[in-house]
């Protein structure tokens, strides 16, 4: 079989590479292959994760002006940026899942964001405001679907001391827990400004005057 293939392969370079790939031990010893394979595997895996983590910090997030001029400026006014204990939640803490598989899925989805960066879909404040309801709804929908997974990296109903909370918080949290609500159901617009909420919650916005 292989002889027959080699004969057919005489003039074709791709075909010869295929031969090596198909039966490499003809050329290299099994030991060399294992050692080289192991080392290159470690390098590739480490490199891949390092590169992915480099896209997972605030500096990277706000390296495009869409993020820096809009959502980042708004976030700087909120408790997740500055608070009494000095604990800060940066962009990826809330917007990128911690678990590897969910993280990779989110990173692949982000390629769509690169496309829209290239298209200039939200490259002015006005365009961004125009799209804000749609963009915010996407995040709310994702948070709802995952039971606010990223919030729960730090906040957990079960770890909450209701005795330390205010009257209104105790009521809302204990009722929310019973009703199976998730964080984002109530806590919208805590780190960024809200879109026009008239269609989302007609009672809480004035709408058209």
């Amino acid at each position: 079989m292989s002889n027959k293939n080699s004969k057919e392969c005489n003039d074709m370079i791709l075909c010869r590479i295929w031969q090596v790939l198909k039966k490499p031990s003809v050329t290299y010893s099994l030991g060399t292959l294992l050692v080289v394979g192991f080392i290159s595997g470690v390098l590739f895996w480490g490199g891949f994760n390092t590169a992915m983590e480099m896209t997972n910090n605030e500096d990277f997030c706000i390296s495009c002006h869409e993020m820096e001029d809009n959502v980042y400026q708004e976030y700087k006014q909120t408790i997740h940026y500055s608070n009494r204990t000095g604990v800060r939640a940066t962009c990826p803490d809330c917007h990128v899942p911690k678990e590897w598989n969910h993280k990779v899925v989110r990173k692949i989805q982000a390629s769509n964001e690169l496309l829209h960066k290239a298209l200039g879909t939200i490259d002015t404040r006005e365009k961004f405001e125009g799209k804000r309801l749609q963009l915010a709804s996407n995040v709310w929908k994702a948070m709802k679907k995952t039971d606010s997974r990223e919030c729960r990296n730090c906040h957990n109903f079960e770890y909450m001391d209701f005795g330390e909370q205010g009257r209104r918080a105790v009521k809302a949290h204990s009722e929310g827990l019973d009703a199976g609500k998730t964080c984002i159901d109530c806590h919208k617009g805590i780190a960024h400004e809200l879109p026009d909420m008239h269609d989302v919650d007609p009672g809480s916005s004035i709408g058209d005057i």
Partner: protein
Amino acid sequence: MKKITLIMALLLTAGMSMQAISDSVSSLRGGNDIDNDSTTTPAKKYNKDGEPIARDYVQQPPLIPHKITNYRINLKSNKCMSCHSWADYREAGATKISQTHFESRDKHVLANVSARRYFCTQCHVPQVDAKPLVENEFTPITAISGQQ
């Protein structure tokens, strides 16, 4: 020559009276030298969460018995209304917004909160636990306080 003497005399008088004024006026810094740090009173903290606060006089806008830090009120959203609106007050256990807030200034009843009543904190304010700056002997009328 006479004129020049007159002008000089006027300037001298003006300069002296300016000096007198600047001696009697104290700046916002007080008598502090520019080298010394001025002292500030610590910022007051708003009362956390409490029961509704009784009113002291007729037509008083009810006071806000909780913190409202970072509550946004603008044309796009109104954080107060996410609990105090007629749609949400039952679930939130909040006081509902008065029907008087649904009227235009010509007394026309509207389908939503009137624009002139939309910005809650123009009238309703949260409280800090602070000592009164001056003595105050005001007491509410008995119809409000319920005390004889």
